[in-house]
């Protein structure tokens, strides 16, 4: 099943299983069903609980906060991840703060979903991966969808917990088929699922046993899929073996599966699509360099898009974004 449909089904299941779930967002009702069609069909079946709003991202996030403070489980869709800037005050100064600043008297379990990322030629304000601005916001979890995580499972776990969540969905994943681990395998590779206490799994994929992998690649979302394809080809064609670690929750990170892999491979590459500088990769590099000081075979490598605006031109966009070619180049560097 393609990722867009599987997220839609996950939302449908959430609406079915919990009366407190409310969906708010721009253009999410039928027949349009959302800019990326994720919510198609839901408003027909849940007309009171799936609502299109005016173009008011701050109010969408703010209303969700009020709903959550009142015991509901709101899920907002922000049409493009670029528009998260319009929710920043609500996320940082309201949603993520209420429980802690009121000393635990309330909870504010808002989930904000947003399609993000480039590769579609939408240009500077409809292509970004702005999630790095939300990493490290206290009491906020940033989660990324991927092909190897079942959105129904992720949503179910999030809906049983009370943390506010920013859920990043790369728009290039929507038309791709989910590749969920089955019998310890994904597409022939070994797939190990690590489930921490708070329940959001990290999937580690390797073509051969970990002891035979010479490096670890850490990536999430669409970049994880690009890395999986490259690693799969390098394994078959060139016997270059690396382990790919794909977390569902990217901030704060679940370090255990990352540590477990690096502890064996002693080499790490972190890939992300957001622009370089003050990144997820630099945080991971700082942590891993400290944890494995003196034990790594090379400095932690990071790869990110160029720190500039995302051009609309297909050629120029491909020049600055993390494409398959750049992912391969970065992997070859740590594999050398």
């Amino acid at each position, binding site marked *: 099943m393609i990722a867009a449909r599987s997220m839609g089904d996950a939302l449908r299941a959430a609406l079915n299983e919990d009366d407190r779930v409310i969906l708010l967002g721009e253009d999410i009702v039928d027949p349009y069903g959302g800019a990326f069609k994720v919510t198609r069909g839901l408003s027909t079946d849940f007309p009171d609980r799936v609502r299109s709003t005016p173009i008011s991202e701050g*109010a969408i996030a*703010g*209303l969700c906060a009020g709903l959550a403070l009142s015991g509901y489980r709101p899920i907002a869709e922000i049409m493009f991840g670029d528009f998260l800037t319009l929710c920043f005050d*609500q996320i940082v*100064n309201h949603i993520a703060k209420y429980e802690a*600043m009121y000393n635990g008297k309330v909870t504010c379990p808002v989930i904000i979903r947003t399609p993000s990322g480039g590769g579609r030629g939408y240009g500077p304000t409809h292509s970004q991966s702005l999630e790095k601005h939300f990493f490290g916001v206290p009491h906020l979890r940033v989660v990324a969808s991927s092909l190897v995580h079942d959105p129904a499972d992720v949503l179910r776990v999030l809906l049983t917990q009370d943390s506010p969540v920013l859920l990043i969905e790369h728009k290039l994943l929507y038309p791709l088929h989910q590749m969920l681990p089955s019998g310890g395998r994904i597409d022939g590779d070994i797939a190990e699922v690590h489930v921490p206490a708070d329940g959001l799994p990290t999937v580690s994929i390797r073509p051969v046993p970990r002891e035979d992998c010479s490096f670890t690649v850490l990536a999430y979302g669409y970049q994880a899929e690009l890395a999986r394809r490259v690693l799969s080809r390098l394994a078959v064609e060139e016997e270059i073996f690396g382990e790919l670690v794909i977390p569902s929750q990217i901030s704060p990170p679940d370090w255990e599966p990352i540590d477990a892999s690096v502890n064996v491979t002693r080499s790490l590459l972190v890939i992300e699509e957001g622009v370089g500088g003050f990144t997820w990769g630099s945080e991971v590099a700082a942590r891993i360099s400290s944890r494995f000081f003196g034990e790594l075979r090379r400095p932690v490598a990071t790869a990110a898009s160029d720190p500039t605006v995302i051009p609309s031109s297909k050629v120029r966009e491909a020049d600055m974004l993390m494409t398959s070619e750049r992912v391969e180049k970065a992997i070859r560097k740590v594999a050398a």
Partner: protein
Amino acid sequence: MTAGVLSVESGRQPGAASLPPVITTTHPENGNTSVHTFVRELGQDVAAEVNHATPIAGEADARLVGVPGEPRAERLYRRMRFIRRFEQSLLDLFERGLLNGTTHACIGQEADAVAVIEHLGDDDHVFSNHRCHGHFLARTGDALGLMAEIMGKPEGVCGGIGGSQHLCAPGFMSNGVQGGIVPNAAGIALAKQLDGSTGLSVVFIGDGTLGEGATYETLNLASLWRLPLVVVLEDNEWAQSTPSSANLAGSIRDRFTAFGLGVFEIDSTDVEELDAVAERALAQARTREGPVAIVIHTYRLCHHSKNDDNRPADEVAARWELDPIEVHGRRLGVSARAAIDTEVESALQDVIDRALAL
């Protein structure tokens, strides 16, 4: 122990440190209360009778919020006087170096809080802003919880984390970032609508808040969805140090009517006039035909926070002539007013002493 209605409270707000248990007895005829605190000593509960009704965090002292059976005019006065003296006491404690951080007193605006909240019940919710003490005290009466909070004590309503501007109690919340509280209050209103509750969500904002866009996104949505939202705008003419004339274009009223809200506008510091307007406005909101706005033109008689008042002295002095405590206090008999003042003074002193001792 006096015969009467007995209630035992653990003295705990969720998450707060534990306080000694307290037994409150209420006399069935005259409504007087006496309080017994239990001190755990050598494994035994020893009852020690306290002379005055002493509140614990989460409870209201009748001497501050209203004595059962007292005339309404006296009740309104008592509640305003309570807020005024609380705020003045805070400023004094700051002067004495006993408080940390900052505060935004509502001196001059007490009547707004008292008049509006007089018409709210348990199903209603109040969201307030940085200048929230008056709203909090009118809503909860929990002077000790607030005093302890501002003193940074674990027994404070938010364990000392929230401080002056970030308060939470049943049916009440506040936050320090202006426009953002408006959609939060609208979300609470939407929850009430979905619940089928008859409650209202009331949000207090200032004239300065009209500069932030989240306010207008919310007015539009609240009106479209006919949310049971009440926006109370206290126009005190100054946004921190900037006068309305340098801040606000057009008319405040038009900003609400443009979105289809019913507007109840009043220029007054008289609690009885405000009380009458609030009653009508809230009654309309309870018809659930959409949000309403109450626009109150008033004045802040104190500085914005502490020692930061550059307004013309003659302008401020002229407004003291309309001090809401005096405007309404003149209606009371001299002895009745003096009796209330004494009770409020003594109750507040208890609160301060108790909070300092925590």
